[in-house]
């Protein structure tokens, strides 16, 4: 996983609430067996009309935001299906940060595992950033994971909360399985005892 410390980038405003993972990556792209190559399908039904034309007024197709690595969205971003393909598509497209008032739980976890930093800010602050990103040309934000702040060049500054362990993993780019395997001995002894609890066995043969 790529390490994350500080990022300054163009910010893309997606002024919609409850953006579900079906919108982030529609089902027809979930049949692939790879982890990469989903960026072209990000927000597919919103960015492309049924006849394959670009939807001109959809923000991803707006040249002003080309190369943006920060996405600003409404509350409950990433709700719905557990598909990690949503995180893969955002990451593959180039996003490293999503700023929103709230995120859905499973998406929150999936994003972290793919090095995407999710920044929760109060609704009024997100609204202000959304307006600035919509109205000002080349509007950039700086997200510092070390300081847990979001800033712009106009004097905006907001702090955000992040679980210290999650921050540590993002900063170090750590692999979860490796971290869990530090507890291998504890796991072995737990499991031996746990296997004896017949009423928790999934199969009659376990």
């Amino acid at each position, binding site marked *: 996983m790529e390490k994350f410390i500080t990022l300054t980038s163009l910010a893309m405003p997606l002024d919609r609430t409850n953006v579900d993972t079906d919108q982030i990556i529609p089902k027809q792209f979930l*049949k692939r067996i790879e982890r990469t190559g989903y960026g072209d399908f990000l927000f597919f039904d919103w960015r492309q009309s049924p006849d394959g034309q670009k939807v001109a007024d959809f923000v991803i197709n707006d040249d002003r935001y080309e190369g943006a690595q920060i996405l600003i969205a409404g509350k409950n971003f990433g709700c719905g299906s*557990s598909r990690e393909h949503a995180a893969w598509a955002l990451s593959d497209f180039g996003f490293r940060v999503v700023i929103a008032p709230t995120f859905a739980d*499973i998406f929150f976890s999936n994003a972290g*595992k793919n090095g995407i930093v999710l920044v929760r800010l109060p609704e009024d602050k997100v609204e202000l950033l959304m307006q600035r990103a919509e109205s000002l040309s080349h509007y950039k934000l700086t997200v510092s994971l070390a300081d847990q702040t979001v800033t712009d060049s106009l004097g905006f500054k907001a702090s955000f909360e992040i679980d210290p*362990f999650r921050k540590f993993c993002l900063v170090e780019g750590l692999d979860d399985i490796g971290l869990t395997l530090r*507890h291998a001995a504890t796991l072995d002894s737990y499991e031996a005892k746990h296997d004896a609890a*017949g*009423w*928790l066995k*999934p199969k009659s043969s376990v």
Partner: protein
Amino acid sequence: MSSKTLFEKVWEQHVVAEPEGEPTLIYIDLQLLHEVTSPQAFEGLRLAGRKVRRPDRSVATVDHNIPTTMEGRLNVLDQTAVKQMATLRQNCAEFGIELFDVDSPDQGVVHVVGPELGFTKPGMTIVCGDSHTSTHGAFGALAFGIGTSEVEHVLATQTLPQSTPKTFKIAVEGALAEGVTAKDIILAIIGKIGTDGATGCVIEYTGSAIRSLSMEGRMTVCNMSIEAGARAGMIAPDEKTFAYLKGRRHAPQGAAWDEAVAEWSKLVTDEGATFDRELIIDAATLEPYVSWGTSPGMVAPISAVVPDPAAAATEIERKGFERALEYMGLTAGTPLTKVNIDRVFIGSCTNGRIEDMRAAARVAKGYKVATTVSAMVVPGSQAVKAEAEKEGLDKIFVEAGFEWREPGCSMCLAMNPDVLKPFERCAATSNRNFEGRQGRDSRTHLVSPEMAAAAAIAGHFVDIRTWEVKA
């Protein structure tokens, strides 16, 4: 000893390690796998040279991609789907995991198969790369959906690092009116608390209305917990739970059964235990519900009209309402019973169990599907299909003009050939009415199986409480 909630009891039983300043490492009793969210997890194991720690604690089936017609299954035309199903087959063989393949009498939607074969049991921790894993909470299990990286983590370690969720008690008290179902309970709850109303929480459903539900109904309620943003939903096991489990293939037998029932009976929230949040709902106030928008929280009672965005509480909500009505092709003020439909889908992990088939058949019996409607019934598993056919339900459906299909997720998410055409309006017993969920520009209305069957016959939504059942 301090009082504990059902959730706390199950959680504590599964704590492997609590490293300082890190999430708790919890043990996973069972992982369910399907073709769509597992290939990259197995590939990850291979790349890292890791094994599956406990192949005996995983089971797999094909459900998301699979066609629901016999011809379609014998000759799957979508080559990416063929490859994905073949990949699951190969991965299960390579890592020694039991698979219920397309030709197995045990194949079906993963959340229907788990309980019906007795894999799902009270007190267990269960995960699956599918958000509707919350279904299994109906047995008093802690069951939740995970992403593919977590699927890989469980395959490799049989554990997951998890931060402790908050607890949320929702008590539904009183008697449900005739025609008001488990589906209506959960649609009402989501409508009330919103699609992020339970984010970060495990819900425990309690109260006399929940107790009165069958196991199938309880699964319907827990299934859609995720639509309220919850991590999981749980219902304490009771005599109904034990009666459902007894004699199932993977249920304990003999002395082990008695021991298990004694342990499972402890899985209730203690008197005096506290929750982070509580909500009480009066069952008598509930009606049959229909979703009118593009989020499962956008629901209204069948007696209502399509809501006016001007009545929205906030500016942000108003914009959302307007966008939803435009997408759905609906006008504010239209009575929901005047909304015509083109298609009906009865099935899915929400409402694809035998009781759902019976409920829909009871409504359909002796009627004909409207000439303007195309309707299909997709049983949740081969076992549901076989039982329905034994009871003659398939004949009732076919005589009424419904198509009777093979098991799978089907038009719930339309990954297989069962897709709505643009702008088609569908009464669906599934769980999500998101934009494009059932096909690009498709318009989904979530309802109970009874309401879906009645809509198929009438050609528009009807209040099921006024339906005349023919003997």
